[in-house]
């Protein structure tokens, strides 16, 4: 269905949301996004950073094509083969981990060997278990494995490491870096954790409060994923200052 856009494998992600409103429970319209423009080169890893509740998930759902009720335009990279990691693992509780992973893979494809992926994520001994028997950390890994098993050219992650303890989150982050650098995939990653974004991404998009737009964006020099603690801290400080400034300017207008 996305044939027109898949012609060039190197098509960027282009997202333009002029307006997105939804009706709140009491029927009043709430404007979540206004005038948001976002462009991410093919194969790049972009991070959306913004305060909680600023509509990051909404933007991700629009990029995924799950929400078509908005004014604007969304051009997704590649053949539209999407891998998605939701905030909660969203596994099918009545299917084993392996079935969950395999079900997401396109039907017409010959069975793929999952061993490498499963080993990277440390899921080897849990494939035959049901999600209800897993810890949250393991369930998150299963959800990440599912997104990668699709062999996506477009990957969306919605705060996939939130509420995990720092050691586990850290290990999963380096696994994510390993997986995304091996397969050239355009990735959009949502987080409210600036250090996490700086560590993982090569392009940062800072979002305003509601109605959300991109306050400013910036590229980070490579190599991503292997930045030292000090580098991450100093970039984060700089970004914090720039965000504060951009916010002040936005209010001054």
């Amino acid at each position, binding site marked *: 269905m996305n044939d027109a856009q898949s012609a060039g494998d190197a098509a960027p992600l282009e997202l333009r949301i002029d307006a997105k409103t939804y009706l709140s429970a009491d029927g009043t319209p709430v404007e979540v996004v206004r005038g948001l423009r976002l462009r991410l080169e093919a194969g790049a890893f972009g991070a959306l950073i913004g305060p909680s509740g600023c509509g990051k998930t909404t933007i991700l759902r629009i990029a*995924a094509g*799950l929400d078509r009720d908005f004014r604007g335009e969304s051009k997704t990279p590649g053949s539209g083969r999407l891998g*998605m990691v*939701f905030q*909660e693992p969203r596994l099918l509780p009545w299917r084993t981990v392996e079935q969950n992973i395999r079900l997401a893979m396109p039907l017409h494809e010959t069975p793929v060997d999952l061993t490498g992926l499963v080993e990277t994520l440390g899921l080897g001994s849990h494939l035959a278990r049901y999600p209800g028997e897993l810890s949250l950390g393991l369930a998150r890994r299963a959800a990440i494995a599912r997104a990668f098993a699709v062999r996506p050219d477009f990957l969306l992650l919605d705060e996939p490491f939130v509420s995990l303890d720092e050691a586990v989150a850290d290990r999963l982050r380096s696994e994510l870096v390993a997986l995304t650098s091996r397969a050239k995939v355009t990735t959009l990653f949502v987080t409210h954790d600036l250090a996490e974004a700086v560590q993982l991404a090569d392009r940062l998009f800072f979002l305003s409060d509601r109605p959300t737009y991109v306050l400013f964006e910036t590229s980070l020099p490579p190599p991503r994923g292997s930045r030292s603690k000090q580098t991450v801290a100093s970039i984060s400080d700089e970004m914090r200052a720039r965000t504060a400034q951009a916010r002040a300017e936005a209010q001054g207008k």
Partner: protein
Amino acid sequence: MQRIYSLAALIAVWAVAAALIHSRLLPGPLTVGTVFLADTRSGELPYQMACTLARVAGSFAFAMVFGVIAGYAMGRLKTVDRYADAWLIVLINMPALVTIIFAYVWIGLNETAAILAVAINKLPNVIVVMREGARALDPELDEMAEAFRFSWPTRIRHVVVPQLAPYLAASSRSGLSIVWKIVLVVELIGRPNGVGFVLGSAFSLFDMARILSYAISFIVLMLLVESLLVQPLERRAIRWRRRPA
């Protein structure tokens, strides 16, 4: 084990009461057993039970298939629900006897009318339960299925049906018992065979032993269906639930 004790106690109470009253109107377990054996040997009881069982199976299948489709549609699509809800209320409050009479009058005293009448009596109950099930479907899993471009057969089989399984089990449970009771009425009114027909003729002869032996035989048969078919299926459907680690 407790179940067996309590059943034995029930039979004992029955035997004592029958011995005390000593009347043709309350035959004891032995008398009923004798009738059961005689009718089984002559082939009469198996034949009548088979007739009834076939009708139960037919109307049960009809009611489940259409009830699940209609209930799912009403639970998922608000418009369908808004239009069909009034019909459902009419259907659910229609006395079983009225449906049966109309089926026989319009379609004739035949098998189609009998099975249809029973199915229509069971149908609204299935619809109501399945509508609740469809309403309770997890929208987050729907989104997941859409994001990963699940095909429709995959969605139905791996996302929807497992969520509806408890509702399917509940409606088939209550369904089997309702259906077989209404089948007896249908047979009593307008069929030349089946347990209901036998009960009708036994009633006119005050043959209480025969009534009890047929009723008990069918209760036992339904118990077997429940424990050999419905329960294993249900266990299979919920085997993924967290086991004690």
